[in-house]
């Protein structure tokens, strides 16, 4: 059964486009984000940051309308009482310590001295930076900088938290710790929108996934739904090799290959597969075992499958 949400609980994009001059950022986005954890997944340059900057009013749409919890991004005074944004910029005001950074912007929110102090320490504790808080941010490691920025953006306890590639560049330990914090925040009722260019990095913690590529939304829905939708959609690959006929016969025997077709120049073949992972493993085996000399394996540009292949970070070594 679907829960019906009121507009004051949703983030809504209505036919939103953003062009940077001639360059397309995102195009004709119609998207409704419900409470819970939503991941926004797509390769680099697909428009994730653009969407997030649009939501938070850092940039303005060329066309269309956006509402967060019923508030327009052009009204920061209302919006940022309830929304927090931890962006991608790894930069800070000059010369601040971790504590000053979090505290001074809480004062800008309008909190009294005492309240700001309390909230700053709470947030710093949450990201486990109490000891480093009195040191200058300039001396922090990348992971610490990421965490102090997280603390700064959640310190006012927003209802909706937007995070742009928060796991990017973190070592496995820091990554696990950050994911733990996200889960905790979500348990406390915060709605999170998290972007990533690696699907499996975020899919287990997400309630919903939005796939984006080249400025367009490709698929959205529950994690399993999106996975199925992609998997049902075969990926097309072109293989260059010396004995295409022989290879076609061999790959076609595999259950996940639905089509194998010779290239007109007889120097290669097109293959459609429903399971790219399995397919690339098979190609690796064939390259070693059989007498066929495989020159290249390239996914033919088919949006959804190609993006999926990219996102799951397949070990097959195909260039997308």
């Amino acid at each position, binding site marked *: 059964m679907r829960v019906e949400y009121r507009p004051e609980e949703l983030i809504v994009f209505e036919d939103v486009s953003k062009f940077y001059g001639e360059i397309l950022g995102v195009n004709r986005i119609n998207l409704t984000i419900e409470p819970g954890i939503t991941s926004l997944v797509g390769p680099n340059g697909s428009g994730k940051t653009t969407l997030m900057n649009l939501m938070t009013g850092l*940039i303005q749409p060329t066309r269309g309308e956006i509402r967060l919890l019923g508030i327009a991004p052009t009204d*920061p005074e209302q919006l940022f009482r309830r929304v927090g944004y931890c*962006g991608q*910029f790894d930069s800070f*005001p000059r010369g601040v310590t971790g504590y000053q950074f979090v505290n*001074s912007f809480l004062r*800008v929110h*309008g909190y009294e001295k005492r309240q700001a102090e309390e909230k700053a320490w709470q947030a710093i504790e949450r990201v486990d930076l109490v000891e480093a808080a009195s040191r200058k941010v300039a001396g922090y490691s990348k992971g610490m900088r990421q965490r102090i920025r997280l603390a700064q953006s959640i310190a006012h306890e927003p209802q909706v938290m937007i995070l742009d590639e928060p796991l990017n560049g973190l070592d496995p330990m820091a990554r696990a710790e950050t994911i733990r914090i996200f889960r905790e925040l979500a348990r406390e009722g915060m709605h999170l929108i998290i972007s990533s260019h690696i699907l499996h990095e975020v899919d287990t913690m997400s309630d919903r996934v939005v796939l984006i590529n080249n400025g367009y939304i490709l698929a959205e829905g529950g994690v399993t739904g999106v996975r199925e939708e992609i998997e049902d959609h075969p990926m097309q690959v072109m293989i260059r090799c010396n004995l295409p006929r022989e290879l076609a016969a061999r790959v076609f025997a595999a259950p996940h290959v639905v089509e194998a077709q010779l290239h007109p120049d007889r120097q290669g073949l097109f293959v459609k597969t429903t399971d790219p992972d399995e397919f690339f493993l098979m190609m690796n085996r064939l390259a070693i075992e059989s007498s066929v000399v495989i020159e290249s394996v390239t996914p033919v540009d088919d949006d959804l499958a190609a993006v999926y292949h990219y996102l799951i970070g397949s070990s097959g070594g195909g260039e997308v």
Partner: protein
Amino acid sequence: MIFAKIKTSLIGLTSVDRASLSLWRCQILAILRIELSKNFWGRRAMLLYLLALVPVVILFLLAIVDPDGASDISRDWNSSQQAFVNIFDALILRSVVFFGSTWIFMNLFRGEVVDRSLHYYFLAPLRREVLVAAKYIAGMVAAAVLFSFSTLGSIFFLYYARGYPANIDFLLDGGGWQQILAYEAITLLACLGYGAIFMFIGLFFRNPIIPGLVVYGWEWINFLLPPLLKKISIIHYLESHLPIPVDEGPFATIVAPTAVWISVPSLLIFTGLVLTLTAIRIRRMEIRYGME
């Protein structure tokens, strides 16, 4: 009945406004704390300290270190004052306050775009208009404090060289304190006017150096300009109120000084206009930091 309704809604309105006003005041104070510590302690501040010190050091050298200078000042107080007004005009107003305001106000937003930290303000529950007001006030406070120091410090050495008790007599009975007030007020007006111009230039021009130089040149050739053009400048209004008229040389066009009740409101209106334009600009500003 209906009146009661109107009344309650009016009360509601004013109370909302009052809440907003007190919020804005809090926010402006919070931004002032951040910005002033940047203006006074940041790396960019060093240059300002040096600049503000220049006139004080020059007066110190002329009036104290140089024995001829010192005796000239105590002997011929009138021409010393004439000399001082020229120093005040050329060195303090046209150079120190001019370049100091350029530095402070052009960097109000630019500095944070360069550092890529402006978005932190844009992501706070803060009206951008309030941000503009707070940043301008922060710039004004920094400029006012630093350049008041230049003016008062210079005057101190001038008076010191005059010798006791003649200097105290002049200060109390010879119109000295009125003069000092005038110099001080003109310094503040200069910060106000140049501050507005350079905040404007810093925001509306990609490369502010050329327009900055144009303004600089315009202010210098002001004395040659026909009366109407003369009034399109900051320096004309400032010079109108100098306690002793500055000698503009033989080629100057003669224009009656503008009265205080015109020039001060004009500068304030001009500042208000520039702040409004800035607020509109900042409202539409996008964070891109020239990248990607």
